[in-house]
Every structure is written in C-alpha cells, then in structure tokens.
C-alpha cells in the first residue's frame, strides 16, 4: 500500500515543496515588515551553492544548512541596505539581487578544480523518525518518512504564525509594515525591525536553497532553482501573507513539480516540457484569479506600506 503512486506522490510533493515553503515563509516575514524582496531566487541560489560547498567539505547537514542560511541572509542584507537605508526602488533592488545571486552562485559553483561537482556523500538526509513509524500504512510515508528539515519547516510555519499574531514582536512587525509612521511614533525602531525581517527572510530563502540542493536534487548545477524562488514570491501573494496557507500552497506546487513522476508511473504520456510548464501556468492562473476575485482578498491582506520606504524627517 505504501508503494502506491498516490502515497509516494504525496510524500514526494512534501519534499519538493519544502524549499518553496521555506523561501515563501521567509518572504512573508520580510513583506509583513513592509519590505518587498523580489530577490528570493538569487538568495536561494547563493544559499544552495554555499550549502553544497559546506556539505562536500564537512559532511554535516546542520552546518551546511546553517551556512546556506547565512549566505542567503548575507545577500538579503544588500537588499536591506538598498531598500531600507538608501530607499531605492524595491522592485529594481530585488531584481538586481536575483542577477547578482545567479551570477555569484554560478561563479562560485565553477571555481577551481571544482570539488563542488562531487555529490555530498557525507551529508545525511535520511528520515528522522524510526522505521516502524515510516512503515505505518498510508500515513507512514506521508507523515513520518521525512528527513529533519521537512519537520523543521513545518515547525517554522507554526512558530511564525504564532509569533506574527500572538506576540509583541509580531505585533510590532506588522505595525511597521502597516503604518511605519504610527509605529515610529509608538517608539518602535522601524529601520531596525525591517533590517531584521529582511535578514530573516534571506536566511529562510538560503536554507530553502540549501535543502533543494542537498536533499531534493542531490547535486549542484548552475541555476538549479529553475524559478522556485519566483514561485515562492507568487505564493506569498496567493497565501495572502499567511504562513499556514503558504504551507498548503507550497506542497501543492511540490506536487505539481513532481507530477511528471506520478504521470509516468500512471503511464500517461505528456511531453516533459509541458510538465515543466504546469507549476508556472498554475501560479499564473491563480495570481490572475486572486486579483479578479470580487472580495479583493489580495488587497485587504497585503501590508499597507509594502514596498514603501520610510523616511522620518520628511517635509
């Protein structure tokens, strides 16, 4: 039963969706503070290359994830300086981050005699929970058969949702994203909060990239995210800036990305290029549908000051 197509597909969707989930969660935190960082794709790539390098050299998953996260955070710091301190157009700044990230990762991924081309044999991404749990019928592979990062990502969603709505930090973060002038007058440090949120977002995206290269793909290849970062950016809108909805969306996109595998087993003959298109077409259709919905859910949910730099001494 546990080898059935459906069970395996769902299990693989969760794994394939986890990098997108981590990146989207980070971007939700960033955007909630009013900063729009479109550079997710770039941060994921840099996180991936750094984590791969670290994984090859140390064999430690923890260390590799950490290094990947720090690399993503480092790149996001550039965005923070551009968007928050220098107050340049956030769209343009985010795009420049994507191009820097893909250039930097491609460059670093090809440096020297390239130990990077070797697979990270030592990195252990085996299932976290004991075998008897993973072998439980149906729920085993879907719920208990995953590596530690899948569970960390779910825990992070729960934690983020809790913090956003039920803590002083979350309230402050949302205030900074809704109305920075009011937050400033209330004594919150708008710039500091936004830097922090942007860096957290970069860290999450970096871990997402790290997980993608270490667990999902297993080997480094230039441009390996193939749009996953952009899917994450779209997902933030689709999820209405809410962590739990991002989780559902990310797993759905994971399933769409793994659709080829499923259909192959089901012996449905669809050209692989069309399978590649499916997540992107889905994201396109849903983004348009959300903006067409009469309730305008999107506009209500978006942080009111998203993308707007804050400047205090303004006259």
């Amino acid at each position, binding site marked *: 039963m546990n080898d059935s197509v459906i069970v395996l597909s769902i299990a693989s969707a969760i794994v394939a969706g986890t990098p997108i989930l981590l990146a989207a969660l980070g971007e939700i935190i960033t955007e909630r503070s009013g900063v729009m960082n479109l550079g997710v794709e770039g941060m994921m790539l840099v996180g991936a290359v750094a984590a791969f390098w670290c994984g090859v050299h140390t064999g430690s998953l923890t260390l590799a994830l950490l290094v990947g996260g720090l690399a993503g955070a480092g790149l996001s710091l550039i965005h923070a300086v551009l968007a928050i301190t220098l107050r340049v157009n956030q769209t343009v700044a985010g795009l420049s981050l994507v191009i820097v990230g893909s250039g930097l990762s491609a460059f670093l991924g090809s440096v020297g005699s390239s130990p990077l081309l070797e697979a990270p044999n030592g990195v252990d991404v085996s299932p976290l929970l004991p075998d008897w749990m993973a072998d439980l019928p149906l729920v085993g592979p879907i719920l208990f058969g995953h590596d530690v990062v899948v569970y960390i990502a779910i825990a992070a969603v729960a934690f983020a949702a809790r913090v956003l709505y039920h803590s002083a930090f979350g309230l402050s973060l949302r205030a900074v994203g809704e109305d920075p002038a009011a937050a400033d007058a209330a004594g*919150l440090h708008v710039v500091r909060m936004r830097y922090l949120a942007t860096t957290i977002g970069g860290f999450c995206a970096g871990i997402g990239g790290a997980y993608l290269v270490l667990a999902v793909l297993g080997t480094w290849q230039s441009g390996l995210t193939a749009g996953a970062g952009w899917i994450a950016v779209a997902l933030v809108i689709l999820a209405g800036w809410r962590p739990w909805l991002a989780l559902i969306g990310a797993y759905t996109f994971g399933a769409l990305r793994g659709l080829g595998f499923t259909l192959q087993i089901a012996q449905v003959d669809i050209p692989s290029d069309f399978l590649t298109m499916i997540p992107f077409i889905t994201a396109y259709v849903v983004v348009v549908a959300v903006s067409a919905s009469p309730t305008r859910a999107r506009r209500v949910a978006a942080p009111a000051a998203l993308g707007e730099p804050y400047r205090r*001494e303004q006259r």
Partner: protein
Amino acid sequence: MDSPAHPVSLQVKDLRKSFYGVPAVDGVGFDVVGGEIHGLLGENGAGKSTLCSMLAGLYRPDSGSIVLDGDTVQLRSPDDAAARGIGMVYQHFRLVDSFTVAENIVLGDAAAFGRKARRGVEERVEQLAAEYGLEVHPSAPVWQLSVGERQRVEILKQLFRGARILILDEPTAVLAPHESDRLFEAVRLMVATGHAVVLVSHKMQEILGHTDRVTVLRAGRNAGEGVTNSLTTAGLATMMFGSTYTGASDDEPRALHTPGDDVLAVNGLQVTGDHGRTAVDSVSFSVRRGEIVGVAGVSGNGQRELHEAIAGLRSSTEGSVTIDGHDCSKLGPKQRHAAGLAYIPEDRLGTGLAPGLPIEHNMVLRSFSRRPHSRAGWLSSAAIAKTSARLVRDFDVRGARDGMPVSFMSGGNLQKAILARELTEHHEVLVAAAPTRGLDLAAAEAVRNHLHRERDSGRGVLLFSEDLAEVLDLSDVVLVMFKGRVVGSFARPDVDIEQIGLLMTGAATDEPTSAT
C-alpha cells in the same frame, strides 16, 4: 502614576531646527510644570509642529536644550521621549488602522503584551478611560472609529504608557464644537492629577479659554508670553502677526449676491467607500451661480468620497451629477472638466499635481492633449513653457525652477499652482476640497480671495473644509455631512452654529434639518 511625588517640569531653551537650510524653529523657549496647561499659540508655519516633533523625539534639534525635571536630556527617539514621560498626541493621528484600540495602545510596549497581560491591558485601558471620561471600546478596530474616538485612543495610549507631560498638537482641528468641550474636560482632569499639558493651537479663543500660561510663536521664534488671564485677544493677535495686523477679514462687509441658476446639481448620489461600505448615501443638493456652498462635517463622514465622485475620480453606484446643465454621471474626469468643472483636490501633491514632475508639466496636466500644447499627438514644448510661465506670473507662484520636481515647493505655492491651472481654464463651477489646509496665513488668505472672486464673477463654488470657522466665514449656504448623508442645510443669514455642531456629530435627530 496618577499623582507624581513631585511636580514634573519641562524647560525648553533656544531650540533650533532647519530643513534644507530653511529654519523652521529658530530659537524657541518655554517651560511648563505639572498641574498647568501651557498654550503654544502661532499661525500655521510658525514652527509649532516642528517644535512638537522635537519634543516627541521624532526630530533631532540642531541646537538648544530640553531640560526635564532639572536634567538636560537628549531625546534620541520617540521611544526615548515616551520613556521619559513625554507623550505626544499628533494632529494627524499615528494609529495603525487595521489594529484594535488595545493593540495600538500596547504597541511599542513589550511588557504589556502576552495573553494574560492583554486582559490586564484592556482592564487598565477601561479604568483610565473611565477616570478621564475618554470612553472607547478596547477591542474595536481603529478604522471603525470616529475622529473623536481616535483622538481618545491617542491620549489613552500616552496615559497608559505613563506620560506625565502631554503635548496636544491642534487637538480641536478636526473636532466638532461639543467634542472639543469634552476633550477639555478630560484635559482638566489630567492636570488635576498632576500632569503637565502643552496645548498647541492657532486658535486664539481656544488658548484664552483653556490655558494657564501662553507662549506665542511667530516665524519660528518666541514672539511673546504671559499669564493667560492678563492677556487680551488684541494683545495676542499683535504677538502672533506683528504690529501691522489689522484684524480678521470677517469684519469686512459682505456684498449681497443674488444667486443665479444651478451650475452644479447632485441628485440622489450613492458612492461606495474604500472599505466597501456606503460612504455617500443618497446625497442631493445644488450649487447656484454666484454662491459659495460650504460642506461642514467631521472628516471621514463621506466628504472625500463625495467630492471625488463629483470630479469623476470615483464612480457612483446611483444618482446623477449635472454640471452646467450637462449630465456627467457616467463621464470621466476629463469630460467633466470639459463640461465646466474646476477641481482642487484635497491631496495637492499626488492628485492635484504629479510630485516628481516639473512645473511646466503640471501646469498643462489638464490641457496637454489640446492645441496649442500639442498637435497631432506631438507636444509643443515652446507653447507649454509659455503657458507655464504665464500662469506662474499671474498667480505669483514662487520657488519653481525649470526641471525641478514640484514636490520641492512649499504648500502655499503648490496650491497657487493648482489654482492657476484650474481657474485659468474655462470653468463654470469650482469644487475646492480643504483648499487652505496647512497653509500659512497669507497663502490661506490668497486662496480665500480666489474663492470670493469666483463667486463674484458669477460662478458657483462648492467648498469642503474641516475648519468649521472657515466654512461659516466663506459660505452662503452651509451643508452638514454626517455618516455619508447631508443632515442639514442652512442659508445665510439663518445659520445656527450650535445646531450645526450637533448635526456634525449626529447628536441631533436623523431627520434632515433645513432652514433654507
């Protein structure tokens, strides 16, 4: 916290602050102690708001000192100011609309958070509210509150955080008369419990009626001070405006006008607001040639939606707008302009003018696609420059330079630029929304003169203003708006100020009142 052991004291000495090299506050000093209300009087542009922002820790002074309880302090941030017991209630409220009252009150105060703590917060807020007569519902979202309620939240927030010195910046600017009375009752209770209150205002009567001592500001400097009881209106006016001041304009005889035909007719207009609720509810009225119709009301009662719908910037769901005999209900802003509507929007920079573009561009914003400014789709920069130069000269617009974005110009000159463009083009009726807001005395006076001139030349004027005194001063007919409806209509000379004040806050009956 309610009665400090020793009275709090604040001294401000020779404070200065410049923006872009232009001094806004240029050597101001005053002092206040617990148990008194100190008035800061000055016209718009005298430096009051900048002074307040420095006391709130929002702006850093260029020089001078702030002495709190005998110690010189540096107020590095609003947080810092709040921690030292200085609470600021801004003229434009600083509340997060999507948050509840309680969330706004605890914002920036981490200790007050947590689930258990939050229940305590609501209790404490209710207790403070009862103590000072500032009732609000702690769990209501702020965007649902009226202006008066929002102000109460701002004050409660400061009291909650233990403010000992409260600075109220133009607190009555947006309140109806009886709401103001209620505010001052609360202020007196605060003073009685040992707080020091700084009341910042440009209204002399308010300062004379509610303060213990006064400091007058003019052009960013101290222009006089004294104990309120010893001062007179004339004395204060001289300090405010200098010795050349010759009295307010409402003394001048009002010419008698016989209004003509309807030039703007609004019938059964229904408009949906930003929150999806009905913002303008079956509003009908007309403006005749040779008269100024003023719309009074506390802001947020549908005025903005109404003038935007008249101008064609917002669509109406029902009803009609007729401009000079043409039914414009289904037309866009351009066609309404062509039908004879001139419009001064509330939002000068951003709607009335494109902030990042130069004056030449803005002066032809309405007419760029017509001759002589363009031919067959191509602009004539010579003709545009000529028009712009003429309008700048005729309306005395200053501070404009070739290629410079208009956002660098002052509010008064921006308004003159809009007036120049709107009044030079053909028009039969002028809709002016908050045309004098934030302008200094001279600029505001210039705008009012333009409105008079419009009326005298036989056109119609529809004036929206939060400043009730201005509406009463200028209008031949006063309409009162409350919750999206016109709840009263008064024609000169039968204007009942008290009744208008009550109608503005819904205190009177729901039945539309008419003295016309």
